[in-house]
């Protein structure tokens, strides 16, 4: 019994169909409670006013935008090294979710920035690097779409993901150097939980959990779809050969 067992598509389908109801319920519950709590029951912050409520959609989506790319990097590496098809398909399935998360972070950030900084968009390091991350997601997805042969596509996107990760990181620091920004530093570092008071902290934790579970749910669903699509292609090909 090891994690590699799930590299078998059949095993993956079985396990994921067993796990799907749980993560779905978990995602819906965490999101519903967390967002409700955040929206209706938190007080106004002294310097943010009621806009502090935006944090419950902004921070989790921004975290997921980065984490999903890291997850794609890991699955791409697994595909390139051990050649498990499920891994490559999971990376493909994750990309659109990551793109939407990046978009949410950008849009809520813009809406939040308007009253706080007096501008929708500022060429601030964090905003800029998220925009670049968005471009990387777009390029990655476009490359998947453009190549017909699924194994070639998986290989090339895998290599692109590796190179892209290096350059996304590099861009992050280059952009930092290029312009010092308005964006406040990380609110949620582990050693400084006092950064944010408990009233805001607990609903935020729930929202983050909700976003993670939502990602897992969507990822399982999309990976299952991709596996089915591969099987469909294989069957069609066999039919044509016969």
């Amino acid at each position: 019994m090891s994690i590699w067992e799930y590299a078998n598509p059949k095993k993956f389908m079985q396990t994921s169909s067993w796990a799907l109801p749980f993560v779905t319920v978990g995602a819906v519950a965490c999101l519903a409670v967390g967002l409700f709590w955040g929206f209706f029951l938190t007080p106004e912050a002294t310097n943010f006013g009621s806009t502090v409520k935006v944090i419950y959609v902004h921070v989790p989506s921004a975290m997921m935008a980065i984490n999903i790319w890291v997850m794609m990097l890991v699955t791409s590496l697994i595909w390139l090294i051990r050649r498990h098809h499920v891994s490559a398909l999971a990376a493909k399935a994750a990309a659109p979710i990551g793109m939407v998360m990046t978009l949410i972070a950008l849009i809520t950030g813009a809406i939040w920035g308007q009253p706080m900084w007096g501008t929708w968009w500022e060429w601030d390091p964090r905003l800029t690097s998220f925009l670049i991350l968005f471009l990387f997601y777009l390029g990655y997805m476009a490359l998947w779409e453009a190549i017909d042969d699924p194994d070639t596509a998986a290989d090339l996107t895998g290599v692109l993901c590796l190179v892209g990760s290096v350059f996304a990181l590099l861009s992050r620091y280059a952009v930092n150097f290029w312009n010092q920004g308005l964006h406040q530093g990380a609110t949620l570092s582990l050693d400084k939980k006092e950064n944010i008071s408990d009233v805001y902290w607990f609903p935020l934790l729930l929202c983050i959990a909700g976003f993670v579970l939502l990602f897992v749910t969507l990822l399982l669903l999309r990976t299952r779809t991709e596996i089915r699509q591969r099987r469909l292609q294989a069957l069609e090909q066999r039919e044509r050969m016969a």
Partner: protein
Amino acid sequence: MMPELGKYTVTVMGSYIATIALLAALVALTLWKGARVKRALSAQEERMKKNG
């Protein structure tokens, strides 16, 4: 029931609505594509079983 959002009503409501709309679109797209592929696959399997 509605919390008092003051002058930032549009900001807060806007970001929640944008988030929920985008997530809903993503979920809908995922489910739709999933159902479509599932249907196509079962149709294909059915046909191949029939033709041997």
